[in-house]
């Protein structure tokens, strides 16, 4: 059977994101809070871009702006050269070329995994309904979830649910996959396997990935580029190119190159963590 979702172009050509001088100011009760401060990034097609920063630093704000959940105050964001949002229309439209995988998982609990995966094509009327389900099943099977396609998300482990969610995104052939700390609640070992599964799906699709995390090792293991962000307001503090060879697996974690990369980034991240921590304690007092 022909592959449903995993058909990679040899050279990825779509899914370039340009974030140009974006600023976001929230306005709760008339008091202005700057979440993102003149932030710029250029993400190449098919790149795995990892955003590392303390929690609450405003990195999710950027993701929300790309996905079209929140407006931006200044600057513009382009996808493949076409403006998503800018000075004229600060709120991007929501569309299936940019799909988000959420922190706590957002598979609809009232649909089976297959129905969940079929949901996107179904509401977009891409194929007849029966065919959508058929293709969804095939896609799940390819991702190693064939046996649980007819289970509800509440019945499978969180790891399976998270992978099904990624399949639900990929079946729409998005240009960009936006991941918002998807593995946060998982323990380290499950996480490791989830990473390998994600990388495998990536290797086959070469979709652009925008991945938010505060786990440095996760970032280095997965990414092509790691952006270390400052604590609020969010700015780019440091960019690290990751030249670890792909495909990567858990042995990469203990390689010398990996160790050096961690060492290089660790200080910057630790510094921001400490700042965020102290700010947090102050705020609570």
């Amino acid at each position, binding site marked *: 059977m022909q592959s449903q979702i995993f058909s990679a172009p040899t050279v990825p050509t779509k899914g370039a994101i340009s974030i140009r001088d974006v600023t976001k100011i929230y306005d709760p009760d008339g008091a202005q809070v700057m979440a993102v401060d003149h932030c710029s990034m250029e993400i190449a097609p098919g790149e795995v871009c990892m955003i590392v920063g303390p929690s609450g630093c405003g990195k999710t704000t950027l993701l929300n702006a790309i996905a079209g959940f929140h407006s931006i105050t200044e600057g513009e964001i382009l996808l493949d050269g076409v403006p998503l949002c800018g000075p004229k229309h600060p709120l991007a439209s929501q569309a299936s070329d940019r799909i988000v995988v959420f922190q706590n998982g957002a598979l609809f609990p009232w649909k089976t995994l297959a129905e969940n995966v079929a949901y996107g094509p179904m509401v977009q009327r891409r194929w007849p309904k029966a065919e959508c389900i058929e293709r969804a099943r095939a896609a799940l099977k390819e991702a190693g979830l064939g046996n649980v396609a007819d289970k509800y998300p509440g019945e499978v482990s969180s790891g399976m649910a998270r992978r099904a969610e990624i399949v639900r995104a990929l079946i729409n052939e998005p240009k960009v996959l936006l991941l918002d700390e998807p593995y946060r609640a998982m323990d380290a070992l499950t996480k490791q396997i989830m990473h390998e599964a994600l990388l495998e799906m990536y290797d086959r699709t070469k979709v652009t990935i925008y991945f938010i995390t*505060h786990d440095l090792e996760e970032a280095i293991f997965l990414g092509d580029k790691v952006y270390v962000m400052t604590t609020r307001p969010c700015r780019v503090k440091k960019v690290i190119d990751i030249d670890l060879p792909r495909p990567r697996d858990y042995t990469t974690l*203990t390689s*010398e190159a990996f*160790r050096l990369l*961690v060492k290089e980034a*660790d200080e910057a991240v630790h510094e921001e963590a400490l700042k965020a921590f102290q700010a*947090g*304690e102050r705020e609570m007092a």
Partner: protein
Amino acid sequence: MTTTAAKPTAVTAPVDHAAGKSRVELKNVSRGFGEDWAREEVVRNLTFEIKPGDLTCIVGPSGCGKSTIVNMVAGYDHPDSGEILLNGQKVVGPAKDRMVVFQETALMPWQTTFDNVVFGPRLRHEGSRPEIEKEAHRLLEKVGLGEFKQKYPSQLSGGMQRRAELARALINRPLLLIMDEPFRGLDAMSRPLMQEFFLRLFEENRRTNLFVTSEIEEAIFLADRLVVLSNRPAQVRAVIEIPLPRPRQFHMMSSPEVFEIKRQALEILHDEAMKSFGGAAHFAHRGPAEHEARA
């Protein structure tokens, strides 16, 4: 594969608190749950030892039965067979000589941080009121919560709650401190800060400690010895000594030595985690039913 490198762990800590130096032994401990036809062994023939003044880390894939072990050592649950000894005496039920810091906070939400800390001594009428309160103030200062004494747990951040819980455990002067994945759920950035803080506290008087985690880095950073468990039913796969000097520093973590230990442990764990992933992970978040926990 058991790496038992004989190593003197640069023991520099003062041996003043005789109370903290106790030995724990688990001998052939087994425990299962479920109805007869679906009985599942969670722990099988587990034998290991926690040396006096050591920080022993139990590492294993999620759902492998770590929490069951904690419950048995703490005395909330009892082994089907085998026995658990604390300083040669059999563990029969919960007591103040073994304190647990739980996975998610178990601070009582209806008491202020301060009242939570003095809860134990007050119940047992140990010492006079001012004495108890003085000790509580001291401990709270020490964990950096001096300003937060009169706040309720829900007003504290996750990291603060864990520290308050540490203070609550320490005021009871336990012979054994049991930490059940205490830093799980904290974000990856404040976690190292908490680990460092906890280490300083431990290294001060080296109270015997059983630390449960599924994070290999955390385990190596903190522990004197790692006990690596297999997938359910939990069995000891390996015991690894960590020959890092104390006090531990973060930079030690990027040494080649540590990477070698990490590699060994990861190899075993990855193997076990993969096994658990298909079937057992399915059961992992269900956990054994809380049997008759109420009197």
